[in-house]
């Protein structure tokens, strides 16, 4: 029995019931379309939301933490070496936040194959002066080029050019929330007071908007040299080193390694932002569950239609068997029917899914917290198309398999005698 003849017979049976076939295929198309659009949309949103935090967060942050010394004087006393020590009311030492020998560390990190980029940072606590009101603030002194390269800095800055921060001395990119409170416009001069009590005038060259309102009320950005000036420190003062890795999952291991190597504190992204991973995983699971349910429901549709078709085509099956078609031939015919519904439905669905994604991608989506996003985010990952098509074809295969097996077991004598 040639495949050509099996498909020929399957085709004739399909065309004889083309309306049912169409309905079944539309069921598959519909579910594949929705699967692709839903997951693309969901992943797009996930990436956007994760990006809010993850893009802005270094994979590893090296810094000097403020904490009490692990070794107290008593521990050094030889006489009490084998005793358990109770020391109350330990206070941190007057530790400096500065990272010693930062240049050498940065050079060393650049040479590391596992590191994709390094950006130095200085965190400065300030008060924004607003007449006689003082607002809490943090000014991040950053290397603009590295910040733009590693953390998409420019995506979060509106109303100005980020390089002005580097080119204009004593300039600041002000947090949007803080700027709104201060009614500061671009080009305005604002006053800040440092924790040591010194006042500075800074020129506003743009606004920073991270998408997290609480952050924007506090955080502002300035160049490294401006930050060093605010703190009254020399030009090699650096308080944080931010590291981006080639493989984010290595962060916890590398953090421990650098901690030892440079005698610094290291914080990895997984520890810092564990909840975001969890959130996006749960969202993904939910959308996969919904998508796969759609595909399975479509499978039941095919199962029903094939079952009905078998009842209608009892005579046909009986006559095929009487004239010498084996049960396996009949089974092949019905599985061919199911698969051709599945495959044509799946591929049409993939195409429509792509178009629906395009449509969603074109819908305007403006939100105050995301200045660079203008339409709904969509992830066009090929994996959704692959999963949808494979799953749709597999579902229809199984949906066809059971009715096909039933058809193959039909006893022609009962049908022929029954007339």
């Amino acid at each position, binding site marked *: *029995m*040639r495949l050509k*003849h099996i498909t*020929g*017979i399957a085709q*004739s*049976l399909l*065309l*004889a019931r083309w309306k049912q076939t169409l309905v079944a295929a539309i069921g598959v198309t519909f579910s594949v379309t929705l699967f692709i659009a839903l997951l693309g949309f969901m992943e797009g949103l996930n990436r956007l939301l994760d990006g809010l935090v993850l893009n802005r967060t270094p994979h590893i942050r090296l810094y000097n933490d403020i904490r009490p010394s692990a070794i107290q004087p008593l521990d050094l006393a030889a006489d009490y070496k084998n005793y358990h020590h109770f020391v109350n009311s330990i206070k941190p030492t007057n530790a400096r936040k500065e990272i010693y020998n930062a240049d050498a560390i940065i050079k060393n990190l650049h040479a590391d194959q596992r590191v994709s980029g390094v950006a130095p940072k200085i965190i400065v606590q300030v008060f924004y002066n607003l007449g006689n009101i003082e607002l809490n603030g943090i000014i991040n002194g950053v290397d603009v080029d590295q910040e733009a390269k590693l953390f998409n800095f420019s995506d979060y800055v509106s109303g100005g050019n980020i390089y002005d921060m580097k080119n204009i001395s004593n300039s600041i990119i002000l947090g949007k929330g803080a700027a709104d409170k201060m009614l500061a416009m671009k080009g305005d001069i604002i006053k800040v007071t440092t924790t040591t009590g010194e006042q500075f005038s800074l020129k506003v060259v743009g606004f920073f908007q991270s998408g997290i309102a609480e952050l924007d009320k506090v955080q502002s950005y300035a160049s490294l040299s401006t930050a060093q000036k605010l703190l009254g420190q020399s030009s090699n003062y650096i308080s944080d080193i931010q590291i981006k890795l080639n493989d984010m999952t290595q962060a916890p291991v590398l953090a421990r390694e650098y901690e030892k190597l440079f005698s610094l504190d290291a914080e990895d992204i997984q520890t810092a932002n564990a909840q975001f991973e969890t959130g996006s995983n749960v969202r993904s699971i939910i959308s996969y569950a919904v998508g796969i349910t759609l595909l399975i429901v479509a499978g039941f549709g095919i199962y029903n239609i094939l079952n009905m078709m078998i009842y209608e085509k009892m*005579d*046909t099956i*009986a*006559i*095929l*068997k*009487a*004239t*010498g*078609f*084996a*049960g*396996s*031939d009949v089974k092949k015919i019905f599985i061919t029917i199911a698969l051709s519904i599945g495959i044509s439905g799946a591929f049409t669905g993939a195409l429509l899914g792509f178009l629906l994604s395009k449509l969603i991608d074109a819908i305007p989506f403006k939100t105050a917290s995301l200045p660079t996003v203008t339409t709904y985010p969509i992830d066009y990952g090929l994996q959704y198309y692959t999963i949808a098509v494979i799953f749709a074809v597999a579902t229809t295969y199984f949906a066809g398999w059971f009715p096909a097996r039933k058809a193959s077991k039909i*006893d*022609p*004598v009962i049908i*022929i*005698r029954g*007339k």
Partner: protein
Amino acid sequence: MENNIVLEAISINKSFNDPVKIDVLKDITFKIHRGEFVSITGKSGCGKSTLLYILSTMDTDYKGLLYIDHESMEQKTEKELAFIRNEKIGFVFQFHYLLNEFSVIKNVMLPGFKSNKLSEEELEKKGFDLLKNLGIEKLAHKMAYQLSGGEKQRVAIARSMINDPIMIMCDEPTGNLDNKNTEIVFDIFKELAKSYNKTILIVTHDLHFAESTQRIIKMDDGRIIN
């Protein structure tokens, strides 16, 4: 003479067990030789159709031995039996049983697709010749459901011959036809038996029809009585 036997049944017994045990066939033994035109007749319910289904290998639930072309049908798988039906037996049923989804010529070619011995072109030519012999070549490209009863039965006869079977089995081939068509179909069978030397086994309750065959096997209550 022995080599001429195409079908041999040895003491075939069959009984239905539901709801009570009924013996439908009792100790059926007979032979059919090549080129014979045989009819099986009997009253309704005497088991003649049941016997035909067993002889045609479709029904395997019986006791006894069945040889088709000197080959025992015992212990054969469903696939092997299907193969034998396809190669060695042609079928004509009471209700013509053409596939409505296909054109007439495709219906005729269908058993040939399964045996896959001829190319599609050769098969089509052969099918067309068969239709021509039966005088219905004009219908070749019509759909099966567009035909009248008598035409359908003639197409069914053409289909039964596409694989050059060693015998043709018919279950009440004229049972559903009017007198005129019955005549036509009957003439075709006679012609097949005479000119083409085909072995034909017909189950019928139409005595008039049966009488004009070479040999009549009469059945009553599950036994052969002549």
